[in-house]
Protein backbone atom coordinates (compact mmCIF):
# COMPACT_ATOMS: atom_id res chain seq x y z
CA UNK A 1 0.00 0.00 0.00
CA UNK A 2 2.41 2.54 -1.30
CA UNK A 3 1.52 6.16 -0.67
CA UNK A 4 1.37 8.57 -3.57
CA UNK A 5 3.80 11.45 -3.77
CA UNK A 6 3.76 14.09 -6.47
CA UNK A 7 6.85 15.51 -8.13
CA UNK A 8 6.91 18.67 -6.05
CA UNK A 9 6.55 16.78 -2.78
CA UNK A 10 9.24 14.35 -3.87
CA UNK A 11 11.60 17.17 -4.72
CA UNK A 12 10.97 18.88 -1.37
CA UNK A 13 11.44 15.70 0.59
CA UNK A 14 14.66 14.65 -1.14
CA UNK A 15 16.01 18.19 -0.91
CA UNK A 16 15.19 18.45 2.80
CA UNK A 17 16.64 15.00 3.53
CA UNK A 18 19.98 15.76 1.87
CA UNK A 19 20.18 19.09 3.69
CA UNK A 20 19.25 17.62 7.07
CA UNK A 21 21.46 14.52 6.96
CA UNK A 22 24.85 14.84 8.61
CA UNK A 23 26.54 12.82 5.86
CA UNK A 24 26.06 12.30 2.12
CA UNK A 25 22.94 10.27 1.29
CA UNK A 26 23.02 7.65 -1.44
CA UNK A 27 19.97 6.89 -3.55
CA UNK A 28 19.64 3.57 -1.73
CA UNK A 29 19.65 5.37 1.63
CA UNK A 30 17.04 7.84 0.42
CA UNK A 31 14.85 4.96 -0.72
CA UNK A 32 15.30 3.12 2.57
CA UNK A 33 14.54 6.09 4.81
CA UNK A 34 12.54 9.12 3.73
CA UNK A 35 11.11 7.50 0.60
CA UNK A 36 10.14 4.29 2.32
CA UNK A 37 6.52 3.54 1.58
CA UNK A 38 6.31 5.92 -1.38
CA UNK A 39 7.35 3.47 -4.07
CA UNK A 40 9.44 5.94 -6.09
CA UNK A 41 11.13 4.33 -9.09
CA UNK A 42 14.90 4.55 -9.50
CA UNK A 43 14.40 6.54 -12.67
CA UNK A 44 12.09 9.02 -10.98
CA UNK A 45 14.50 9.53 -8.10
CA UNK A 46 17.34 10.12 -10.54
CA UNK A 47 15.25 12.68 -12.40
CA UNK A 48 14.45 14.38 -9.11
CA UNK A 49 18.14 14.60 -8.17
CA UNK A 50 18.95 15.94 -11.65
CA UNK A 51 16.26 18.57 -11.18
CA UNK A 52 17.78 19.56 -7.83
CA UNK A 53 21.21 19.81 -9.37
CA UNK A 54 19.80 22.17 -12.00
CA UNK A 55 17.86 24.21 -9.46
CA UNK A 56 21.03 24.87 -7.46
CA UNK A 57 23.43 25.31 -10.37
CA UNK A 58 23.53 29.10 -10.04
CA UNK A 59 23.25 29.34 -6.27
CA UNK A 60 25.72 29.69 -3.40
CA UNK A 61 25.54 25.97 -2.75
CA UNK A 62 25.49 23.07 -5.17
CA UNK A 63 24.26 19.50 -5.10
CA UNK A 64 27.25 17.22 -5.53
CA UNK A 65 27.42 13.48 -5.90
CA UNK A 66 30.34 12.05 -3.97
CA UNK A 67 31.43 8.45 -3.58
CA UNK A 68 29.12 7.94 -0.62
CA UNK A 69 26.16 9.87 -1.95
CA UNK A 70 24.62 13.26 -2.49
CA UNK A 71 25.34 16.32 -0.47
CA UNK A 72 25.08 20.06 -0.79
CA UNK A 73 28.29 21.99 -0.62
CA UNK A 74 29.31 25.59 -0.98
CA UNK A 75 30.61 26.87 -4.33
CA UNK A 76 34.39 26.60 -4.52
CA UNK A 77 34.65 30.27 -5.56
CA UNK A 78 33.15 31.29 -2.21
CA UNK A 79 35.72 29.52 -0.07
CA UNK A 80 37.82 32.59 0.44
CA UNK A 81 35.17 34.91 1.91
CA UNK A 82 33.59 31.97 3.77
CA UNK A 83 36.91 31.29 5.45
CA UNK A 84 36.25 34.34 7.59
CA UNK A 85 33.57 32.37 9.40
CA UNK A 86 36.25 30.09 10.82
CA UNK A 87 39.25 32.15 11.72
CA UNK A 88 42.12 30.15 13.16
CA UNK A 89 44.66 31.95 15.23
CA UNK A 90 48.10 30.54 14.63
CA UNK A 91 50.54 30.39 17.54
CA UNK A 92 53.07 33.12 18.15
CA UNK A 93 56.40 32.84 16.39
CA UNK A 94 59.15 31.12 18.26
CA UNK A 95 62.39 32.80 19.22
CA UNK A 96 64.13 30.83 16.46
CA UNK A 97 61.80 32.31 13.83
CA UNK A 98 62.37 35.85 15.08
CA UNK A 99 66.15 35.45 15.23
CA UNK A 100 66.21 34.04 11.72
CA UNK A 101 64.10 36.91 10.47
CA UNK A 102 66.35 39.45 12.16
CA UNK A 103 69.45 37.89 10.62
CA UNK A 104 67.92 37.89 7.17
CA UNK A 105 66.96 41.54 7.59
CA UNK A 106 70.45 42.63 8.69
CA UNK A 107 72.62 40.28 6.70
CA UNK A 108 70.74 39.78 3.46
CA UNK A 109 71.31 38.21 1.05
CA UNK A 110 72.17 35.30 3.30
CA UNK A 111 72.01 31.53 3.03
CA UNK A 112 70.45 29.21 5.57
CA UNK A 113 73.92 27.82 6.29
CA UNK A 114 75.21 31.27 7.13
CA UNK A 115 72.27 31.86 9.46
CA UNK A 116 73.02 28.56 11.19
CA UNK A 117 76.65 29.52 11.55
CA UNK A 118 75.79 32.77 13.29
CA UNK A 119 72.97 31.40 15.44
CA UNK A 120 75.08 28.42 16.35
CA UNK A 121 72.11 26.07 15.88
CA UNK A 122 70.47 24.53 12.88
CA UNK A 123 67.58 26.36 11.24
CA UNK A 124 64.70 24.07 10.34
CA UNK A 125 63.03 24.11 6.94
CA UNK A 126 59.82 24.86 8.85
CA UNK A 127 61.25 28.18 10.01
CA UNK A 128 62.21 29.19 6.47
CA UNK A 129 58.78 28.08 5.25
CA UNK A 130 57.01 30.08 7.96
CA UNK A 131 58.83 33.25 6.95
CA UNK A 132 58.41 32.61 3.22
CA UNK A 133 54.69 31.84 3.54
CA UNK A 134 54.21 34.96 5.56
CA UNK A 135 55.67 36.80 2.57
CA UNK A 136 58.39 38.44 4.65
CA UNK A 137 61.40 36.75 3.06
CA UNK A 138 62.13 35.30 -0.34
CA UNK A 139 64.93 33.64 -2.20
CA UNK A 140 66.59 36.24 -4.44
CA UNK A 141 69.32 34.03 -5.87
CA UNK A 142 71.59 31.09 -5.21
CA UNK A 143 75.07 31.09 -3.88
CA UNK A 144 77.45 29.43 -6.29
CA UNK A 145 78.90 27.01 -3.82
CA UNK A 146 78.24 23.27 -3.67
CA UNK A 147 74.54 22.68 -3.19
CA UNK A 148 73.69 26.14 -4.57
CA UNK A 149 71.93 27.26 -1.37
CA UNK A 150 69.22 29.87 -1.69
CA UNK A 151 70.05 33.44 -0.77
CA UNK A 152 67.33 34.92 1.41
CA UNK A 153 66.32 38.56 1.51
CA UNK A 154 63.47 40.48 3.08
CA UNK A 155 60.56 41.66 0.95
CA UNK A 156 58.60 44.86 0.59
CA UNK A 157 55.83 43.17 2.58
CA UNK A 158 58.31 42.89 5.44
CA UNK A 159 59.05 46.62 5.28
CA UNK A 160 55.33 47.41 5.03
CA UNK A 161 54.47 45.28 8.02
CA UNK A 162 57.01 47.03 10.21
CA UNK A 163 56.20 50.42 8.76
CA UNK A 164 59.63 50.95 7.25
CA UNK A 165 60.47 52.61 3.95
CA UNK A 166 64.01 51.23 3.74
CA UNK A 167 65.97 48.64 5.58
CA UNK A 168 68.38 51.25 6.90
CA UNK A 169 65.55 52.52 9.07
CA UNK A 170 66.19 49.44 11.17
CA UNK A 171 68.23 50.44 14.21
CA UNK A 172 71.96 50.19 13.44
CA UNK A 173 73.73 47.45 15.25
CA UNK A 174 77.32 48.45 15.61
CA UNK A 175 78.34 45.13 16.92
CA UNK A 176 76.60 43.27 14.26
CA UNK A 177 79.20 43.10 11.57
CA UNK A 178 81.47 41.46 14.06
CA UNK A 179 79.40 38.38 13.75
CA UNK A 180 80.72 37.46 10.36
CA UNK A 181 84.39 36.88 11.20
CA UNK A 182 85.33 35.52 7.82
CA UNK A 183 83.84 38.43 6.01
CA UNK A 184 85.24 41.00 8.35
CA UNK A 185 88.67 39.56 7.79
CA UNK A 186 88.21 39.68 4.08
CA UNK A 187 87.10 43.26 4.16
CA UNK A 188 90.09 44.20 6.24
CA UNK A 189 92.38 42.36 3.93
CA UNK A 190 91.23 44.07 0.78
CA UNK A 191 91.34 47.36 2.54
CA UNK A 192 87.91 48.43 1.50
CA UNK A 193 86.58 48.84 4.95
CA UNK A 194 86.48 52.57 4.92
CA UNK A 195 84.67 52.79 1.67
CA UNK A 196 81.82 50.68 2.81
CA UNK A 197 80.34 53.35 4.99
Amino acid at each position, binding site marked *: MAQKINDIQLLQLVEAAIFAAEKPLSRAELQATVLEGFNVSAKRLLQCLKQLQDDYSARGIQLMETASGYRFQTRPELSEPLARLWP*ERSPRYSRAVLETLALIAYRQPITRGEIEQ*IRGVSVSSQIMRTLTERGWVKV*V*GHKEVPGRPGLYATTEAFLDYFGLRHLDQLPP*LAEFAALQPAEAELLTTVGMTGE*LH
Partner: protein
Amino acid sequence: MAEQLPPLTIQQPLPLAFVRGEAVLERPEDLYIPPDALEVLLDTFEGPLDFLLYLIRKHKFDLVDLPVNEITLQYMEYIELMQELNFELAAEYLVMAAMLAEIKSRLLLPKITNLEDDEHDPRAELVRRLQEYEIFKQAATDLDVLPRDERDYFTAQASLADNFSPLLILPDVDFTELISALNDIVKRSKALAHHHIQREHLSTRERMSRILDLLQQRQGYLEFAECFDLTEGREGVVVTFLAILELTKEKLVELIQVAPYAQIHVKLALSEA
Protein backbone atom coordinates in the same frame (compact mmCIF):
# COMPACT_ATOMS: atom_id res chain seq x y z
CA MET B 1 -4.12 12.39 29.82
CA ALA B 2 -7.02 12.41 32.25
CA GLU B 3 -9.14 10.39 29.88
CA GLN B 4 -6.75 7.47 30.09
CA LEU B 5 -7.09 7.10 33.83
CA PRO B 6 -8.81 4.12 35.40
CA PRO B 7 -12.23 4.73 36.95
CA LEU B 8 -11.97 6.20 40.42
CA THR B 9 -13.64 4.98 43.57
CA ILE B 10 -16.49 7.17 44.65
CA GLN B 11 -17.95 6.15 47.98
CA GLN B 12 -20.79 8.58 48.15
CA PRO B 13 -23.18 10.13 45.71
CA LEU B 14 -21.70 13.22 44.22
CA PRO B 15 -23.25 16.52 44.95
CA LEU B 16 -24.73 18.61 42.22
CA ALA B 17 -22.18 20.80 40.64
CA PHE B 18 -22.74 23.92 38.59
CA VAL B 19 -20.59 24.49 35.58
CA ARG B 20 -21.27 27.73 33.78
CA GLY B 21 -24.69 27.77 35.31
CA GLU B 22 -25.46 24.23 34.22
CA ALA B 23 -26.35 21.62 36.78
CA VAL B 24 -24.37 18.43 36.48
CA LEU B 25 -25.06 15.24 38.31
CA GLU B 26 -22.33 12.63 38.50
CA ARG B 27 -23.31 9.12 39.13
CA PRO B 28 -21.51 6.98 41.71
CA GLU B 29 -18.78 4.93 40.18
CA ASP B 30 -17.10 1.67 40.84
CA LEU B 31 -15.66 1.29 44.29
CA TYR B 32 -12.72 -0.83 43.36
CA ILE B 33 -9.39 0.41 42.04
CA PRO B 34 -6.74 -2.21 41.31
CA PRO B 35 -3.55 -1.40 43.27
CA ASP B 36 -1.34 -1.16 40.19
CA ALA B 37 -3.80 1.27 38.67
CA LEU B 38 -3.34 3.45 41.74
CA GLU B 39 0.37 3.34 41.23
CA VAL B 40 -0.08 4.46 37.65
CA LEU B 41 -2.36 7.15 38.99
CA LEU B 42 0.31 8.48 41.30
CA ASP B 43 2.88 8.54 38.52
CA THR B 44 0.50 10.36 36.26
CA PHE B 45 0.16 13.39 38.48
CA GLU B 46 2.72 16.08 38.97
CA GLY B 47 1.88 16.42 42.65
CA PRO B 48 -1.14 17.25 44.82
CA LEU B 49 -2.15 20.38 42.90
CA ASP B 50 -2.30 18.40 39.69
CA PHE B 51 -4.25 15.69 41.43
CA LEU B 52 -6.69 18.14 42.98
CA LEU B 53 -7.22 19.78 39.62
CA TYR B 54 -7.98 16.41 38.16
CA LEU B 55 -10.60 15.73 40.83
CA ILE B 56 -12.13 19.16 40.36
CA ARG B 57 -12.32 18.81 36.59
CA LYS B 58 -13.54 15.27 36.77
CA HIS B 59 -16.43 16.22 39.00
CA LYS B 60 -17.00 19.44 37.14
CA PHE B 61 -16.67 21.49 40.28
CA ASP B 62 -16.35 25.21 39.91
CA LEU B 63 -12.78 26.08 40.74
CA VAL B 64 -13.59 29.63 41.84
CA ASP B 65 -16.33 28.58 44.20
CA LEU B 66 -14.59 25.45 45.37
CA PRO B 67 -16.79 22.99 47.30
CA VAL B 68 -14.16 22.25 49.89
CA ASN B 69 -16.15 19.62 51.72
CA GLU B 70 -16.57 17.44 48.71
CA ILE B 71 -13.14 17.88 47.31
CA THR B 72 -11.55 17.18 50.70
CA LEU B 73 -13.55 14.04 51.01
CA GLN B 74 -12.50 12.87 47.57
CA TYR B 75 -8.91 13.70 48.17
CA MET B 76 -8.78 12.01 51.59
CA GLU B 77 -10.26 8.84 50.24
CA TYR B 78 -7.51 8.44 47.74
CA ILE B 79 -4.80 9.30 50.18
CA GLU B 80 -6.09 6.87 52.76
CA LEU B 81 -6.48 4.17 50.17
CA MET B 82 -2.96 4.66 48.97
CA GLN B 83 -1.62 4.65 52.49
CA GLU B 84 -3.51 1.46 53.24
CA LEU B 85 -1.85 -0.09 50.22
CA ASN B 86 1.50 1.10 51.54
CA PHE B 87 2.30 3.35 48.60
CA GLU B 88 5.05 5.73 49.35
CA LEU B 89 3.36 9.08 49.12
CA ALA B 90 5.32 12.21 48.52
CA ALA B 91 5.19 14.48 51.55
CA GLU B 92 3.45 17.12 49.44
CA TYR B 93 0.31 14.97 49.26
CA LEU B 94 0.07 14.81 53.03
CA VAL B 95 0.70 18.51 53.41
CA MET B 96 -2.16 19.12 51.00
CA ALA B 97 -4.41 16.82 53.00
CA ALA B 98 -3.66 18.83 56.12
CA MET B 99 -4.30 22.06 54.30
CA LEU B 100 -7.65 20.89 53.00
CA ALA B 101 -8.66 19.76 56.48
CA GLU B 102 -7.70 23.13 57.86
CA ILE B 103 -9.68 25.03 55.27
CA LYS B 104 -12.65 22.83 55.89
CA SER B 105 -12.55 23.44 59.63
CA ARG B 106 -12.18 27.17 59.17
CA LEU B 107 -15.20 27.24 56.91
CA LEU B 108 -17.21 25.63 59.69
CA LEU B 109 -16.37 28.43 62.12
CA PRO B 110 -18.83 31.29 62.37
CA LYS B 111 -17.75 34.09 60.09
CA ILE B 112 -16.72 37.18 61.94
CA THR B 113 -15.72 39.41 59.11
CA ASN B 114 -17.90 40.74 56.36
CA LEU B 115 -18.67 38.12 53.80
CA GLU B 116 -17.90 40.01 50.63
CA ASP B 117 -14.26 40.25 51.57
CA ASP B 118 -12.58 37.63 49.46
CA GLU B 119 -9.35 37.87 51.35
CA HIS B 120 -10.93 36.22 54.35
CA ASP B 121 -12.26 33.30 52.44
CA PRO B 122 -10.05 30.43 53.68
CA ARG B 123 -10.29 28.87 50.24
CA ALA B 124 -8.85 31.86 48.44
CA GLU B 125 -5.21 30.89 48.69
CA LEU B 126 -5.81 27.33 47.56
CA VAL B 127 -7.97 28.49 44.66
CA ARG B 128 -5.30 30.95 43.62
CA ARG B 129 -2.64 28.25 43.69
CA LEU B 130 -4.81 25.87 41.73
CA GLN B 131 -5.54 28.51 39.12
CA GLU B 132 -1.92 29.43 38.86
CA TYR B 133 -0.81 25.85 38.57
CA GLU B 134 -3.44 25.11 35.95
CA ILE B 135 -2.25 27.97 33.81
CA PHE B 136 1.34 26.73 33.83
CA LYS B 137 0.21 23.21 33.26
CA GLN B 138 -1.50 24.49 30.14
CA ALA B 139 1.56 26.55 29.21
CA ALA B 140 3.70 23.40 29.39
CA THR B 141 1.29 21.65 27.04
CA ASP B 142 1.34 24.60 24.66
CA LEU B 143 5.12 24.65 24.78
CA ASP B 144 5.23 20.97 23.94
CA VAL B 145 3.20 21.44 20.77
CA LEU B 146 5.30 24.35 19.51
CA PRO B 147 7.19 23.22 16.42
CA ARG B 148 10.68 22.44 17.57
CA ASP B 149 14.07 21.46 16.38
CA GLU B 150 14.89 17.75 15.93
CA ARG B 151 11.21 16.82 16.02
CA ASP B 152 9.23 19.07 13.68
CA TYR B 153 12.07 20.47 11.65
CA PHE B 154 15.74 19.84 11.15
CA THR B 155 18.55 22.26 10.51
CA ALA B 156 19.56 22.36 6.85
CA GLN B 157 23.30 22.44 6.39
CA ALA B 158 25.73 22.32 3.52
CA SER B 159 29.30 21.09 3.60
CA LEU B 160 32.15 23.33 2.67
CA ALA B 161 33.69 23.05 -0.77
CA ASP B 162 36.69 20.76 -1.02
CA ASN B 163 39.04 23.67 -1.58
CA PHE B 164 37.98 25.33 1.66
CA SER B 165 40.61 26.19 4.23
CA PRO B 166 40.03 28.25 7.33
CA LEU B 167 41.29 31.78 7.59
CA LEU B 168 44.63 31.72 9.34
CA ILE B 169 45.17 34.69 11.57
CA LEU B 170 48.92 35.11 11.55
CA PRO B 171 50.68 36.15 14.72
CA ASP B 172 51.63 39.75 15.20
CA VAL B 173 55.27 40.58 15.64
CA ASP B 174 56.31 43.66 17.47
CA PHE B 175 59.32 45.56 16.17
CA THR B 176 60.97 45.40 19.57
CA GLU B 177 60.69 41.60 19.52
CA LEU B 178 62.75 41.57 16.36
CA ILE B 179 65.40 43.81 17.89
CA SER B 180 65.54 41.83 21.10
CA ALA B 181 65.92 38.61 19.07
CA LEU B 182 68.85 40.19 17.31
CA ASN B 183 70.42 41.35 20.57
CA ASP B 184 70.25 37.79 21.84
CA ILE B 185 72.19 36.56 18.84
CA VAL B 186 74.77 39.26 19.33
CA LYS B 187 75.22 38.37 23.00
CA ARG B 188 75.36 34.67 22.31
CA SER B 189 77.88 35.14 19.55
CA LYS B 190 80.26 37.31 21.55
CA ALA B 191 82.72 34.46 21.55
CA LEU B 192 82.85 34.56 17.79
CA ALA B 193 83.29 38.28 17.62
CA HIS B 194 86.17 39.53 15.62
CA HIS B 195 88.29 42.43 16.67
CA HIS B 196 87.53 44.31 13.50
CA ILE B 197 84.20 45.81 14.09
CA GLN B 198 82.56 46.66 10.85
CA ARG B 199 79.51 48.71 10.50
CA GLU B 200 77.73 48.43 7.28
CA HIS B 201 74.86 50.38 5.93
CA LEU B 202 71.81 48.23 5.74
CA SER B 203 70.91 50.04 2.55
CA THR B 204 73.87 48.33 0.86
CA ARG B 205 72.66 44.90 1.90
CA GLU B 206 69.15 45.75 0.83
CA ARG B 207 70.47 46.88 -2.56
CA MET B 208 72.42 43.63 -2.87
CA SER B 209 69.18 41.71 -2.49
CA ARG B 210 67.49 43.93 -5.06
CA ILE B 211 70.21 43.46 -7.65
CA LEU B 212 70.13 39.67 -7.17
CA ASP B 213 66.36 39.74 -7.52
CA LEU B 214 66.62 41.79 -10.70
CA LEU B 215 69.28 39.45 -12.10
CA GLN B 216 66.96 36.51 -11.53
CA GLN B 217 64.22 38.20 -13.47
CA ARG B 218 66.61 38.91 -16.34
CA GLN B 219 67.97 35.40 -16.72
CA GLY B 220 71.07 36.32 -14.76
CA TYR B 221 72.35 39.05 -17.04
CA LEU B 222 72.24 42.81 -16.67
CA GLU B 223 74.00 45.75 -18.22
CA PHE B 224 76.08 47.49 -15.56
CA ALA B 225 74.24 50.74 -16.18
CA GLU B 226 70.87 49.08 -15.69
CA CYS B 227 71.70 48.52 -12.03
CA PHE B 228 71.64 52.23 -11.40
CA ASP B 229 68.59 54.37 -10.97
CA LEU B 230 69.78 57.90 -11.61
CA THR B 231 66.67 59.40 -10.04
CA GLU B 232 67.99 58.22 -6.68
CA GLY B 233 70.74 60.76 -6.87
CA ARG B 234 74.34 60.55 -5.86
CA GLU B 235 73.79 58.61 -2.69
CA GLY B 236 71.72 55.97 -4.47
CA VAL B 237 74.44 55.51 -7.07
CA VAL B 238 77.04 55.05 -4.34
CA VAL B 239 74.89 52.48 -2.53
CA THR B 240 74.38 50.54 -5.75
CA PHE B 241 78.07 50.64 -6.55
CA LEU B 242 78.99 49.37 -3.10
CA ALA B 243 76.36 46.67 -3.37
CA ILE B 244 77.81 45.47 -6.69
CA LEU B 245 81.31 45.45 -5.21
CA GLU B 246 80.07 43.53 -2.20
CA LEU B 247 78.22 41.03 -4.41
CA THR B 248 81.39 40.55 -6.46
CA LYS B 249 83.45 40.07 -3.36
CA GLU B 250 80.99 37.48 -2.00
CA LYS B 251 81.25 35.81 -5.42
CA LEU B 252 77.55 36.17 -5.99
CA VAL B 253 77.97 38.08 -9.25
CA GLU B 254 80.67 38.51 -11.86
CA LEU B 255 81.51 41.63 -13.74
CA ILE B 256 82.25 41.03 -17.40
CA GLN B 257 83.86 43.30 -19.93
CA VAL B 258 84.65 41.65 -23.25
CA ALA B 259 86.90 44.42 -24.52
CA PRO B 260 88.42 47.59 -23.14
CA TYR B 261 85.85 50.38 -22.97
CA ALA B 262 83.12 47.97 -23.92
CA GLN B 263 79.87 47.78 -21.97
CA ILE B 264 80.30 46.12 -18.57
CA HIS B 265 77.80 43.38 -17.74
CA VAL B 266 76.74 42.07 -14.36
CA LYS B 267 76.19 38.36 -14.46
CA LEU B 268 75.00 35.89 -11.82
CA ALA B 269 77.99 33.83 -10.74
CA LEU B 270 77.88 30.27 -11.98
CA SER B 271 79.36 27.38 -10.16
CA GLU B 272 82.41 25.77 -11.69
CA ALA B 273 80.47 22.54 -12.12
